[in-house]
Each structure stands twice: as structure tokens, then as C-alpha cells.
């Protein structure tokens, strides 16, 4: 088939309209979310003292941190799904959760410690945290990668890493309502490790499946 012939067939297919990447990502995440929620209700569930915990600013802070990761990661992953997009000017959005955590750690340090630092850091749930966040992330990660496959990222591994960040951010939001460790030190350590793991998986898988 010569190039003129190929062009003729492409022009004939111009009537075909594909949905935007944002629509595909939203749909894929909505399909994946029930699976993650199922893992949550089956194995974890909301902590029993959630009503009183809500009055603890450090409990609420966990959601601010995880959502300030998930939402910018969604925005950046959509941005990167355009072939000409650069990371430049967007990366700082990912510093949002880091900044929030730093402020939280600072304010906890200024208060009279309720527990010794090592206990706040290690907590009671570190092993669960390292297991539950990646486990709940996986369906969301698969959904995010499926949705982003519809795009045309120039750097598939980077786009895959963003898919990892957004799914870990969403999974950590669920996990935060279960976990009784509210110290920002705990969040900064274990949530970050779990997120890094999911991000690495996203980058590796993304480098394969997000090529177009």
C-alpha cells in the first residue's frame, strides 16, 4: 500500500470519533474503584472511632495529604497524555503533599508528644499499611493505565509513574479512614514507601503498555 492510498483510507475513517482521554480515564477509574472498595470493606473497614477521630486535625490531615497527591497526579497524567506535553511547570504540583506533610510534622513536633517519636513513626499498622495501600492500588492502577492507553504520552514510563501516584493516592485515601496511626511521621514514612512501590510498578508497566 503506498502512502497516498494509506492517506485515502485514513481520510475515509475521519468520521470515527474517539472519546477524550479524560473521559476514558474517568470511566476506567469508576470501573476499577468498586474492586478497591471491595478489598477495603472485606479486609479493612473504617476505624470504629471514626466520629471522634474526625475532631483530630492529624486524622483529617491524612486525607488532605492523600488527596493532594491523587488529584494533581490525575491532572498531570492527563496533561502528559498529549504527545507534545512537557513535565516542566507541572512537577511542582507534586510537592503539595510533601509540603502539607512537612507542615504537619512541624506542628506535631511543637505539641507536647502524646507518644514517643519512635512509636509514632513505627505505629501499630506499618505492615498493614505497606500491604493494604498497594493491594487497593492495583485495580485502580490497572484502570488508570487502561484509560491512559487512550492517550499518546511521549514518555510512557513517566506517564505510568503518574498512574501509580494517582492510584496510590486514591488507595491511601481509603486506607487513611481505616488506620489508627494519625501521626504525620507515620504517614510520611509508610504511606510514602507504599506509594513509591506502586509508582515503580506503574512506571515499569507503563513503559510497556503506554507506548502508542
Amino acid at each position, binding site marked *: *500500500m503506498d*502512502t497516498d492510498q494509506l*492517506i485515502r*483510507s*485514513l481520510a475515509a*475513517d475521519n468520521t470515527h470519533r474517539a472519546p477524550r*482521554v479524560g473521559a476514558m480515564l474517568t470511566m476506567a477509574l469508576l470501573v476499577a474503584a468498586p474492586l478497591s472498595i471491595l478489598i477495603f470493606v472485606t479486609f479493612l473497614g473504617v476505624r470504629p472511632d471514626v466520629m471522634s477521630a474526625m475532631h483530630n486535625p492529624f486524622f483529617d490531615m491524612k486525607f488532605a495529604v492523600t488527596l493532594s497527591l491523587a488529584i494533581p497526579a490525575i491532572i498531570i497524567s492527563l496533561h502528559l497524555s498529549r504527545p507534545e506535553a512537557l513535565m516542566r511547570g507541572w512537577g511542582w504540583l507534586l510537592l503539595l503533599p510533601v509540603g502539607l506533610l512537612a507542615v504537619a510534622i512541624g506542628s506535631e513536633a511543637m505539641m507536647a508528644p502524646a507518644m514517643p517519636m519512635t512509636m509514632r513513626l513505627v505505629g501499630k499498622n506499618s505492615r498493614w499499611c505497606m500491604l493494604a495501600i498497594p493491594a487497593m492500588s492495583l485495580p485502580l492502577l490497572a484502570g488508570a493505565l487502561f484509560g491512559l492507553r*487512550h492517550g*499518546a504520552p511521549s514518555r510512557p514510563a513517566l506517564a505510568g509513574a503518574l498512574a501509580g501516584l494517582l492510584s496510590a493516592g486514591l488507595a491511601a485515601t481509603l486506607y487513611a479512614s481505616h488506620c489508627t496511626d494519625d501521626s504525620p511521621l507515620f504517614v510520611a514514612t509508610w504511606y510514602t514507601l507504599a506509594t513509591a512501590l506502586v509508582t515503580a510498578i506503574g512506571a515499569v508497566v507503563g513503559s510497556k503498555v503506554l507506548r502508542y
Partner: protein
Amino acid sequence: MRGREDEWTGLMRSAMAGDDAAYHRLLRAVTPVLRAAARRGLARAGQPPDQAEDIVQEILLAVHLKRHTWDSEAPFAPWLFAIARNKLIDALRRRGRRVFVNIEDFAETLPGETPQETASTGEVTAQLNTLPQRQRDVLQSIAVDSASIKDTATKFSMSEGAVRVALHRGLAALTAKLRDH
């Protein structure tokens, strides 16, 4: 050059609004530029230029299947050159070379520089033969025999909708096979 790129953006806007003729004109207008860049990339990698046409066709397929990622408020050329650059890098890598491709390779093309198509378009043709019969028939009919969707539907006693579906699936399958082979 500015004028050329503005013209492309205008054509692409019309194409996205459903003007098939504008889309056809646009693809024909960008092809010589893509061809020149593909040749330059191959030359720089020490590869014979006769594979340029395979790369051009791969770029055109990617442009077609990913055109929903183009923001109609943005100029068309940077989007096009980004896709072309990625496809060129992929193609050269598959041929065993690591090379760096400058975005300028595309933008630099002089208006007078319109190399002729070279004969070898082996990859698309080879992959075409691996498609399911129906997709291959429809693609052949529309591309090679320049039949319309309507005539193709009559020829194979299909509905026009079924022809459109087979055409699109055929193009998508072709692209996937070229990427993964």
C-alpha cells in the same frame, strides 16, 4: 513556515469538525515534511533512506489514531512533530540504533524540499496481509481501489456502518502490529 503551520492548524480544526476533504488535504500536506525528516533521521543513524516511507506511514497511522489528543486551541505543528519524533525514535531503535532526534529536524524542512516517495512500503503491506479477511478486504477496497464507503458496502454486501467499523478496526490493528512486531 509560520503560514504553513497556521494553515495546518486550520485544516485540522476543519477535519475535527467533520470535514473529510480538509483532513485529506492536511495529511497530504504534512507527508513531504515527515518524509524529509524521516530520511534525515535515517541518514544520521547510518541507515539507508529507503525505509523512510515505512516510518512515514507509521507516523500517519499514529497521527490518525491519536488525533483526539490534539487540543484544538493549540497549534497543530508541535503536536504533529512530537508524534513524528516518537515514531521515528521507535523505528530507529527497532532497527538497532540509539539515536537522538531533534524536534528541529521537522520544523527545519524547507518549503522547496519535497522528496519523492520511495518504493519500499513493505511493513504496512506485510502487516496488512495478517489482518482478518474482512478488514483486509475493506482496507484494500478503500485504499487501493479508491472505492467509497458506500461502494465498498455494496461490493461486500455489508452495511455502511459495518464497513466503517471494519475500516477503523483494520487501521487500529495495523498500527498495533507495526508497533509490536
